[in-house]
């Protein structure tokens, strides 16, 4: 054991230098060339940062498209899912309550049409996206409260629907924050 102790300590010090000091500095340096300089990509409106492109935000007002339920109330100081199991009776009551609330705010929408993702909490609590179906189902509400033509809002949703990777891999999605920012710009 003694024979290996000193080499072990020296090797440890060198590996800390290599893997924990130099390597992260190198990556931080390279990332300066990336969009957002490695600090996270932000979205600004009138010169003020209103959000991070990849971080979801809380939208509760009827005039905005809503994102998904969140276990951390969209405060990105932390992150977490609900960790509720699929058979948990309390959890199923929560889902029921979300459905009821969604129906109250979206008159005309039938319960069967609500996508599951709108009444289930995301893994991170910060999911920035919803599926196109979840956006479309809210168009009527948003258009009515803003006195906009439903077709204009529908077009906006279509414009914000991002195709799968390379057109063939993974799901379609809509970034809620970007959609809402453009929604505010509609005449």
């Amino acid at each position, binding site marked *: 054991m003694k024979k290996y102790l000193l080499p072990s300590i020296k090797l440890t010090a060198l590996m800390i230098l290599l893997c924990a000091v130099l390597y992260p500095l190198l990556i931080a340096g390279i990332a*300066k060339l990336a969009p957002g300089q490695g600090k996270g990509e932000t979205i600004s409106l009138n010169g003020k940062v209103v959000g*991070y492109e990849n971080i979801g935000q809380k939208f509760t007002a009827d005039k905005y498209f809503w994102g998904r339920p969140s276990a951390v109330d969209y405060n990105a100081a932390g992150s977490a899912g*609900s960790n509720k199991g699929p*058979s948990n009776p309390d959890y199923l009551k929560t889902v029921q309550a979300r459905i009821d609330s969604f129906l109250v705010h979206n008159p005309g929408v039938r319960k069967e049409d609500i996508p599951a993702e709108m009444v289930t909490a995301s893994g991170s609590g910060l*999911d920035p996206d919803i599926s196109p179906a979840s956006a479309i189902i809210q168009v009527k509400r948003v258009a009515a409260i803003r006195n906009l033509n439903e077709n204009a809002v529908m077009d906006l949703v279509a414009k914000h629907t991002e195709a799968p990777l390379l057109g063939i891999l993974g*799901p379609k999605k809509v970034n809620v924050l970007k959609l809402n920012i453009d929604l505010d710009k509609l005449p």
Partner: protein
Amino acid sequence: MNSEMTGVIVTFIITLLIAFPLGKYIAKVFKGEKTITDFMSPLERLIFRISGIDTTKEMNWKQHMVALLCINGVWLIYAFYVLLFQGSLPLNPDGNPSMAPDLAFNTSISFLVNCNLQHYSGETGLTYLTQLYVITFLQFVSAATGVAAVAVLFRAFAEKTTEKLGNFFVFFTKTITRILLPLSIIVACLLAFNGTPASFDGKDSIVTLQGDSVQVSRGPAAGMIAIKHLGTNGGGWFGANSAHPLENPTYFTNMVEVIAQVILPMALIFAFGFFIRKRKLGYAIFGVMTLGMLTFMIPTMFSELGGNPSFAKIGLHDISAMEGKEVRFGVPASAYWQVMTTIISTGSVNSMHDSSMPLSGAMQMLGMMTNCFYGGKGVGLLNYFIFLIIAVFISGLMVGRTPEFMGRKVEAREMKIAAMIALFHPFLVLVGTAISAYIVTYHPQAAWAVQPGSWLNNPGNHGFSEMLYEYTSSSANNGSGFEGLGDNNIFWNITTGIVMLLGRFIPIIGPVAIAGILAKKKYIPESAGTLQTDTATFGIMTYAVIMILAALAFFPALTLGPIAEFFQL
């Protein structure tokens, strides 16, 4: 076929296409042949000179293990004390506190043993200093430890009769300089250019579009996330791990991360075949492991895509299992990740396993209970080797011949070690679960930071699964969790700490010992009577041994947890 299933299949194909040549490369590195990374050799020579390591001195298997344990001991003490005092050390822009001793004990062991169970949340529980100097550092070196151990196995079977099995420090250092570091730099850049933060800036405060004030945690995460996957470590920078939209911003990064965690375990299997000049054995092992992967993957896909039947009872038509999942990944890519991360001991998650369907939970646990399909950094192959030895022994008995493996007789001493290792994992898991279930039932008011009465986030059988999963994950050195469990208190920190420590080093020492003992034995040339270990028949035999052992040991516990829950839905 829809784009989400295509995504999963393309991901697997790309993984294979990278793993195969990578395996050839790894075999060359450990043989000391010419490779494209030879520009690293001046750096390596410098490291060896400063550390006082004589690279020409070869070790026998015992010396290997002493060196391994010695350097791991140094890391444990170092990590424990830095975590204990992190609050008063530099690089702490968010002003996070020091760790309590029991949490520091758990965390230092967890990362030392490549498990990466996290009883803290990255945003508040660590500082940038500990994220890098402890966590990232241990993610590199613990992975390299596993690879260095498996390299001993390579050497033991490459030569006929030998005691000299290479130098531990050389295997270890080369794993970092030739394999982990170059690949990490590539992966980290891919992540950084797709939205993962890499700068040292602290938390940001913003006012959202709707007018709420929120904060956004950041930090030099990209480098850590790269090695967390390449090293099959799995511990996340952020609390939500790779479900977090900065840790895993897009479908593309999701593919990169899930490929990064599988390529090295796969490559090591191919490397084994190339190194010992028995490619066919490498392919046979790979085939059995892929069969094992599919055994868990197919039911998981069906169970996750089937959705939550309880939603139908509420009256929803869309019953997708989206609780705990992210829209940008969708259900298939989340299910694929769930299986890969549990069979190969990574333990990073892109969806919350606690919220997955009961049968998916059972498959995740079985992945960790067998713990040998592709397997973690080196260790998966070592676990598989144990099952291989048992299969050789049983087959030998069945055909009435002395069991032999690679020209060496397998005798009582090796069999005893193999049997003990195979039983040790269920022992740790089941005893731990039993004790915790007892405490929850009979001492719910015990005065710990989280009272046992409030440990479980879900009632009934699912609550039992949370405890079973925690010990399975600890003993398999996986690190994922049914994270609803209230685990940051002295009971869980200490017990899982001990389980992780034993679950790591015993299954490394055992197989290496067997390999070392076999390597010393007289080499018997193959004859017509030799049991062929690279055939499909023998592959199926090994597969059966693995599944029967896992089934016999774990099915009673699984029945109380996920299987009972499945029948209640």
